[in-house]
């Protein structure tokens, strides 16, 4: 069978209680740990440079509080809060 149809690898799931990208305040930086969500979503983000250990910065929130603007690998990217919640990070000061 296809690997894509198998349940995703256990270890790639973000663990409960982790710090999420959506928990960071504007101006704060983090290092990406795990990305949850659908395989397509995960792969899209990884392809756009949100790989494990990559540095990511929350630049600001949109006027209506959602989505967020992020800076990753030198460019600006926007994700919704609910999607940012699927990304666990380690804060860097």
């Amino acid at each position, binding site marked *: 069978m*296809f690997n894509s149809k198998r349940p995703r*690898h256990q270890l790639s799931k973000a663990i409960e209680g982790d710090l999420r990208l959506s928990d960071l305040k504007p101006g704060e930086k983090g290092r990406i740990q795990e990305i949850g969500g659908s395989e397509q*979503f995960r792969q899209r983000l990884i392809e756009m440079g949100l790989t494990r250990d990559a540095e990511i910065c929350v630049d600001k929130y949109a006027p209506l509080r959602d989505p967020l603007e992020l800076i990753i690998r030198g460019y600006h990217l*926007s994700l919704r809060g609910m999607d940012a919640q699927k990304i666990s990070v380690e804060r860097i000061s």
Partner: protein
Amino acid sequence: MSFNIAIAGNPNCGKTTIFNGLTGARQHVGNWPGVTVERKSGHYSFADQRFDVIDLPGTYSLSAFSAEETIARQYLLDEGPDVVVNIIDASNMERNLFLTTQLIESGRPLVIVLNMMDMALEKGLEIDSETLSTLLGAPVVPVIGRTGEGLDLLREKILRVATEISQKSRPIDIIYPRDIEAEIQKINTLLEKSPLAERQVRWTSVKLLESDEETHHAVRAVDGGKEILDQTNDSIARIERLFKDTGRAVISHARYGFIQGAIRECVVENLSDAVDSSRQIDRILTNRWLGLPIFGFFMWLMFKITYDIGSIPMAWIDSVLVALMNFVSGVLPESMIASLLVDGVIGGVGAIAVFLPNIFLLFFIIAMLEDTGYMARVAFIMDRVMHNIGLHGKAFIPMIMGFGCNVPAIMGTRILESRRDRILTVLINPFMSCSARLPVYVLVAGAFFPENAATVIFSMYVLGVVAAIASGKLFSKTILKGMSKPFVLELPPYQRPTFRSLSLHTWERGYIFIQKMGTVILVGSIIIWVLGYFPTEVTLDRDYNAERANVSTQYAQELQDLTLKYEASIATDSSTYYSEMLSYRASSGYHMLNTQYLDIKAKLNASEQAEIFSLKQQEIGDITEQKWIGQVGKIFEPIVRPLGFSWRESVALITGFVAKEIVVSTYGVLFGVGENVDEGSHGVISGLRSSGMTPLVALSFLVFTLLYTPCLATVAAIKRETGTWAYTLFSIGYSLGLAYTLAFCVTYFGGMFNWLS
């Protein structure tokens, strides 16, 4: 000899600018077969060779998750272009090079373009393109697409790579960590023995490890495929065990590792010189407090420019059309052909042609929003709102544009990347009350709600928005469920647009509209004309000429009587008439009596005119009733009867299918005030009032007009953008159903409570 060139790159990397720079205006815009992804092709000549260029859809990867990626990938692998030109945004190399690593693996001869060198410099980046070229195993050409600097060198490199194909220059391999390489080797060995050996073996192996479905399918179909897939599964399991992540993620991670290594060797960052001007601009434009008001202002400005400036050439086109109509009717004798040309062709197509300036202006502004990079910010600012209906923030633009005209708005859904979003936006767009519906509101609301016309009209707009939102929610929970894509939006750096690129974009989209006018709308107008023209001979139950003559005689008699009385009253004091007038005469004398007489005479004249006019209206109504169009109206009358509509409304709504503003001119015809009626026309207003329509039915009619099937041009646009008749027919059926239901509710419940009767 001619060569096939494919241009590949990320979205927002300036791909289209380079494409335009290479091919000039010699390009063709169409769709990729089966999908509504734009397919741009063009050609140029260099050193006596012809180069056919195709602009592949902008993608971040070749992983075949989206329609765009699938197209780009199939083209690269199956069509085998002679040269792939990979455009890279030099100011954002890291992510842009991700696609490059895949292009290198695909094995096509590659030329890499470092575009936007000026912006990279501004960001303080110094790039050693020689080193980069060695590292990537392909020529690297620095270019500034906006000014065209470096394009000649690019043409030369393309030529060289294209003609060197036979020499089989060995491209480099992206080297993965040792444990992955070991697995790749295992699969390679099996592949080389299989019928797939002639394809790019390494590409296939890597794609297998990435769990790429298409590659799995292809491998399974060949002899020995089972063995290869078994090995693949073993390898993936091993990689997952070693790296604690999916094979896909591990390989992507490794690609970024390779890229970071390359960048370390060939890019020097002078952070002290760096100016992120886009970030500075965004401090204001997407500011938490200023972002929304500024966006609102831009939207207002967009409308203002589109409709105010657009109304100037609109008047010119109108006068040209009138002149043309007069000319044709002057040259041709009164005949069927003349009527067909004047009323059918010129009148029908002309009714739409006057919108051309609006549409071109709107497209120009949209091109500006896109080319500057503000469009991405619109999505950023409005996503919270649109997300409620299950849509992407960008969908806000076509929705707003719908207030102007649904046709460009529906065509504007092309800015949305996902097909599901495009279809959903297309389906709810017609409920945004377009400007063509306004004359109908003004006319009917003016006739039945003179006190509250503005409120009634405004509620129509609100009802339209509510219908759009409710339908959007409904669709995204039913027919378009689960096809939604996650919101991953790049906010590209702001750029100064070039006039050339703006005009090209405007023309590309505007041309589609012109094409439509020449086809669908022309045919529709002719059909309506035929229905209104035949049968040429009608028999009327009443002799209107006699009735009119009768009315004239009656009034002439009354007038004569009046005059006699007046003269008598002046002559003899004993006249009864005089005694009635005595008080007047006492106060202001003879002069007053004269005024009184003239006054009554004028009133008699006016009421004579009115009666004749009313007869004329009835006559034309009777004639229309017997024309095919009236018969069609009669056929549909039983259907609209529960709504309180008569055959007149039935006819008006049917003709409104061609264009909603035609509802007004249809009423003009039905009430015999001629076709050149405007919404303030008293003839139509009095006609409507005397037709037996109640204010409640009028309201119901307005609701129906707002919601029912968009005009012919919109239907054509829906067909074009959804690409299927299924969605087109669904849209027609749904909007008709909704219009009928709501109009019925108005008539029925209003009638129950005796509102507005």
